[in-house]
């Protein structure tokens, strides 16, 4: 999960850029799209071939997906909290 650990800050920070730069509905839509792209990047770099070869297959598959789900949900919680805070501050 080394590559995923390095990608996770990007997954959290990338959606905040359009959210802060474009405080409109279009900016929020772009933030959601950016969050989807960054989540896909997080998952892709967690399963890239440079990762360690699977030792225990079932546990590795389930463990990787569980860890990725937790990481993605945490990033989603951070993105939601910042989005609500920023939107209320703008209003």
């Amino acid at each position, binding site marked *: 999960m080394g590559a995923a650990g390095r990608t996770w800050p990007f997954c959290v920070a990338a959606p905040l850029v359009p959210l802060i730069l474009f405080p409109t509905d279009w900016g929020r839509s772009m933030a959601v799209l950016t969050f989807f792209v960054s989540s*896909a990047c997080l998952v892709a770099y967690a*399963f890239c071939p440079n990762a360690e*070869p699977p030792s225990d297959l079932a546990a590795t*598959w389930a463990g990787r997906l569980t860890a990725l789900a937790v990481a*993605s949900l945490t990033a989603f919680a951070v993105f939601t909290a910042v989005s609500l805070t920023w939107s209320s501050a703008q209003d």
Partner: protein
Amino acid sequence: MATLIPALGVTPYLTLATRKPVAAVVFTLALVGGAKLVAGAVTCLVYGWDAPQQGRTTMPWEDPDFLLWVFWATNLALAAVGYTAGARRFRTLGPACRQLLRVKRPKPHWSAGPFLAPFGAQFPPGVLHQVRCDRIALDVAAATQQVGLRFDRRALESALKHVPHKPVAPLEVTEPNVEEAF
């Protein structure tokens, strides 16, 4: 949450299939875009070609309409198919990796493990010593059967087996007696 399901379901399979993270992300975006096109087509089939004029394609997230429900259902089906295919590919990838590692396992040039072992310390292997599937060279040409190309036929044929040379008795050629023939 709707953005996480395709990312967690489809992207692992595409990453394992393409072995390139960027390509997997691009294909995931394309598949989700295709799901939206499918949802739009179904909406047009149900409500007619003037569905945009009826306000059926606005995709309100607070009050989901038919287009959004179809889009979510398509994404769920896509994620389910991707998850199943990814789990299967991951299951088949593991034994292949182990078999390759068993055939050619790179030996570390130097390791401090033997020196630190008496002190009870464990030395982590270096980056270059980690065994990975993409760093193992498999000589495919040497492992496969040699073939020979015959120009008088249109297909490749297996090379002839190497047999020991046996002494062959010389043939005695006798001149035909022309007079006896008549």
